[in-house]
């Protein structure tokens, strides 16, 4: 990862972004949300780099930090050979043309009171390029390129459908033929039939302009479809990075395994055949993340080493260098997570919230369920505790 490489457009080293939490008292210790906590990755020119993770994993914060929409807490961001993490707003300005973002909610990222033509024309205005008729011509070119009718130049965002609005967002990002576009959940607000249209559009534009994408999404089938490499994020850290096909065939990190198994498959055969791993509990608080491997409280394979030692992202079990996982006990191919039980103390595990009940508790509840099901009258006294 450390060799200078012309192929690499973006390198992120140990990026950290904390947000302060409003504290309630003068003497209270200042607390931080550890949104991104030591992320390193590199993105090659022309590729699509997918980032998947659940709510609160820090994937959006990571994307916004890379675009320098946030000032980062620590770490470095090398874009096209320049270390940009400490650039002032002014020095960033010319680079902003090269790094663009497309957001999830096209309505929220378009000013409803402005006409589409002027929204897409903004980049030209801000950077003082192209005015008047020239600007209009270029805006209409962009509109045509993303599949919008250029005659709709004077319409307002509300007059477009969701898919079309996302096209407006893409057109605006494309204005200066950027090198990198960070797409943050670009299709998750769209219906499936429209989603496919936008994904194809992004693929066409990539082929035409040689764009590099960072594609942030929670939908694993979409990420797999568009990405060359995929990084999996959990509680502010990367748990695994791999070429898309490898990740989806041989996941090494138990979190990746559980995540993949939870994806509902639109195929009754596949969905009946596979065994779902239902994780216990919810994602812990990013204010005080767990020690060692952050996934240990919910991991079926958790062992004492997972609590004490932070795992390093590295190739596991003879994987090629491009496939790295941060896990002490990586999964072998064909291994079934359901066969494992954590060997750490109960106090270190999440039993809070979560999966179905197990063991005794489930039995008690079945009894309770029967009582509830059969009686319209209040249930008998003194059955519990």
């Amino acid at each position, binding site marked *: 990862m450390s060799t200078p490489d012309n192929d690499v457009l973006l390198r992120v080293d140990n990026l950290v972004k904390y947000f302060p939490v409003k504290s309630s008292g003068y003497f209270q210790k200042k607390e931080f949300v550890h949104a991104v906590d030591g992320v390193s990755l590199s993105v090659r020119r022309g590729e699509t780099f997918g980032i998947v993770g659940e*709510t609160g994993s820090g994937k959006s914060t990571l994307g916004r930090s890379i675009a320098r929409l946030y000032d980062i807490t620590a770490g470095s961001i090398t874009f096209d050979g320049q270390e940009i993490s400490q650039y002032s707003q002014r020095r960033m300005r010319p680079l902003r043309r090269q790094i663009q973002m497309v957001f999830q909610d096209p309505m929220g990222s378009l000013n409803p009171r402005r006409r589409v033509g002027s929204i897409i024309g903004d980049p030209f205005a801000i950077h003082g390029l192209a005015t008047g008729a020239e600007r209009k011509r270029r805006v209409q070119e962009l509109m045509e390129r993303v599949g919008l009718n250029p005659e709709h130049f004077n319409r307002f965002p509300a007059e477009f459908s969701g898919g079309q609005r996302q096209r407006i967002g893409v057109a605006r990002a494309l204005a200066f033929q950027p090198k990198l576009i960070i797409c943050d959940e670009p299709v998750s607000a769209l*219906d499936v*039939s429209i989603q496919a249209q936008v994904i194809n559009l992004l693929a066409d534009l990539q082929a035409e302009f040689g764009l590099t994408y960072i594609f942030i999404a929670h939908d694993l089938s979409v990420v797999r479809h568009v990405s060359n490499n995929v990084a999996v994020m959990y509680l502010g850290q990367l748990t695994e990075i791999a070429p898309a096909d490898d990740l989806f065939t041989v996941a090494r990190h138990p979190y990746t395994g559980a995540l993949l198994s939870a994806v509902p498959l639109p195929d009754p055969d596949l969905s009946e055949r596979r065994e779902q791993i239902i994780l216990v509990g919810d994602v812990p608080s990013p204010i005080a993340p767990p020690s060692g491997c952050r996934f240990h409280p919910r991991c079926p394979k958790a062992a004492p080493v997972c609590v004490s030692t932070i795992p390093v992202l590295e190739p596991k079990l003879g994987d090629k260098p491009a496939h790295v996982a941060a896990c002490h006990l990586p999964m072998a191919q064909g291994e079934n997570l359901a066969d494992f039980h954590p060997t750490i103390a109960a106090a270190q595990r999440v039993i809070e919230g979560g999966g179905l009940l197990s063991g005794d508790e489930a039995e008690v509840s079945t009894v309770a369920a029967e009582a509830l099901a059969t009686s319209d009258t209040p249930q008998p006294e003194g059955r519990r505790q």
Partner: protein
Amino acid sequence: MPLLQVEELRVSFRTADGIVQAVRGVSYDVEAGQTLGIVGESGSGKSVSTQTIMGLTRGAQVSGRAVFEGKDLLTASTGDMQRIRGAKIAMIFQDPLTSLHPYYKVGWQIMEMIQQHESVSKDDARKRAVELLRLVGIPHPDRRVDDYPHQFSGGMRQRAMIAMAMALNPALLIADEPTTALDVTVQAQVLRVIQRMQEMFGTAVILITHDLGVIADVADEVLVMYGGEVMERADRRTLFFNSHHPYTEGLLQSLPAYGGARERLRPIPGQPPSLLSPPPGCPFAPRCPYVMDRCRTEDPPLAAAGEEPGHISACWLPHRGSERAELRRKLLEAEPAGTAPSAGGA
């Protein structure tokens, strides 16, 4: 006799722009203990149809029938509806935070629900609330029963909603996009809880979703809606492996394949129809690759399709497999390349 029988349901709303015909002649039935999946995109009418049945679409013009246990819900009195709603038919929604009152404790809200419908003491209602929370997998329910909704995570809130919905052992649970706001791992948890409740209590479930993956996971029967109408109904396997309607086919094709080669996606071209002035004929005709002249003028009725009993489809294409394949091939060839779902390519 089916548990719920919906016949020719029509719902329209008067808006500033004109009359929106949200549901246009929808019929279906739900058997006791069965899971009926209703799938469709935004604006297909999938939520409005069930909300209307529950009497939740005030100000709408409604016609048709929705017979539940011998009573037409659409003409039932307010008092009757209040006795049915929650007790016999329960509902859970997409966003549990807006369905739970932020000011009241979760347990209190479940107790209120129980006491509204049954004369039980406060103590007994509370015990049942605790038991229900335990049932849906809330840890330490005896403590959590006194928490406020904001102290629950998203997944736990949806579990609490399920607990509340199941409190009176309803015959039918309507789940409207119950997992859409949740992460996949939590979604898997919640779907299991619903399935488990269904097994324990024998509840019938109407599961409304846009996610074909969720449908493949849990539905027995599937209803595909588009433009306020039912396009197709089939059992789960038939729908995924032997669908008849071109819209169903288009939906399935526009999904990225989970395994295998990463081919270019095949979206359905165009936009869903406006329900302000829906086109005459089949609502899908403007986007259909196999469209015929007849489709643009005459709306096809739901008719038996394929070999499976209960498989119905609203499409003018022949219902016999071999004839249909033949005609579809001809139609695709006759059509200029631009309008068909783009094949192959870059």
